């Protein structure tokens, strides 16, 4: 047989094998062979597949990284904006709470005509206790008007200008307020002390006062309205040989953090003399 004839036979044999393969596969007889081939090539396929997948993932990662970086910048900018907004809103919330307290006080005490004011400065020295407010004559503020917050008595208007006024705080040594204790109705004179507390002086020896007693303005002397809360007694100083007893009073107003006050504008205070109010 010539070479050419052998090649032709070979081709015909291949076609016959292919047809035989089709028939054998459809009958299921090729199954064992197919299983063997798959079992042998599967690990390689798996490896190749994983490699292809990883390469694909790498490409995706690079794309994702670029997108993430951009998204991160956008989120950072948004975060900064929200942070500032948050700070601003917290301030507004704080201001709102402050003003709500003052409004509640005003609503609970409708007999008072009041003007709200913010504290914008304090006395530059340690030995005086004044604060500066942002309202003055233009709002009808006058000398000696009582100043309060929802927590109690703050002081009185000491000086008035156009657009400002100065308040003498009750914790200043030159401030005197006529007061009463709530339980026993003992009367006395409240004077400011250096450490920011108050002393209730000239309490008659026969009066019963105790730690925890609440102290209010008595209205005596006419320089403050009655029944404005001043503070609470924290210590009683009594000596049998003295005519009067004294008490230390912790003010209810936090003078260190005073931000907003109310000025009672419809109370006509009597001008205090030295040493008495």
């Amino acid at each position, binding site marked *: 047989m010539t070479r050419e004839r052998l090649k032709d036979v070979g081709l015909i044999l291949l076609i016959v094998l292919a047809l035989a393969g089709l028939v054998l596969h459809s009958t299921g007889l090729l199954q064992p062979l197919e299983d063997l081939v798959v079992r042998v090539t599967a690990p390689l396929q798996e490896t190749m597949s994983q490699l292809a997948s990883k390469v694909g993932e790498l490409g995706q990662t690079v794309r994702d990284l670029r997108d993430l970086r951009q998204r991160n910048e956008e989120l950072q900018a948004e975060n900064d904006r929200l942070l500032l907004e948050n700070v601003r809103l917290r301030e507004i919330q704080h201001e709102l709470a402050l003003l709500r307290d003052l409004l509640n006080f005003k609503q609970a005490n409708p007999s008072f005509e009041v003007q709200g004011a913010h504290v914008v400065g304090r006395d*530059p020295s340690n030995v005086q206790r004044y604060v500066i407010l942002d309202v003055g004559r233009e709002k009808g503020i006058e000398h000696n008007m009582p100043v309060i917050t929802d927590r109690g008595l703050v002081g009185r208007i000491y000086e008035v200008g156009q657009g400002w006024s100065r308040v003498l705080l009750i914790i200043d040594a030159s401030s005197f307020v006529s007061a009463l204790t709530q339980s026993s109705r003992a009367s006395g004179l409240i004077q400011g002390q250096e450490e920011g507390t108050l002393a209730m002086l000239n309490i008659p020896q026969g009066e019963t006062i105790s730690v925890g007693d609440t102290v209010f303005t008595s209205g005596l002397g006419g320089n403050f309205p009655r029944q404005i809360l001043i503070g609470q007694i924290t210590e009683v100083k009594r000596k049998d040989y003295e005519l009067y007893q004294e008490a230390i009073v912790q003010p209810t107003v936090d003078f260190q953090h005073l931000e907003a006050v109310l000025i009672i504008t419809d109370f006509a205070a009597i001008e205090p003399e030295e040493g008495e109010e």
Partner: protein
Amino acid sequence: MTLYIVVPLLLLVTVVQTALVPYLSIWGIFADLPLLMVVSWSLLQGRREGLVWGFVAGVAIDVLSGAPFGAATLSLSLVGFVAGLGQATVFGTHIALPLLAVFLATVVYDLLFLLVVRVMGQQVLWLDSLVRTVLPSAALNAILTPLVFLPLRLVHRHFVRKEMEI
């Protein structure tokens, strides 16, 4: 230093003193920036300028303070003048000298201030004021002296002494 600089500077410092410094208090006591500046400059430049600085700062304080007008002007002018007597010894000495000067100046200033306030009719609790306010604020001012004195000394060396040499 020219008044065109001194007046606005001390006015600004006093405004900061009323609007900001009280909120930085420690146990209710805060620093006295105008006093620190007056005494520091007085130690550097002498009693005449110390008097001028004390006067200007005192007027600014009196305008913004609730105390009788003149209390701070008088007290600070005097303290500025007296502090200037220490000028000759401040150069080449330890920072302790300005610290001590500020401590003593604060005590003298506060007591003078209270005296003027008392004379003008306001009540003063002398012992309480001395123990609870004057001495603690003198200590605080002394501790903070380097923060004011050293920058002023730098300004003095670079600008004022150079002017004098010219």
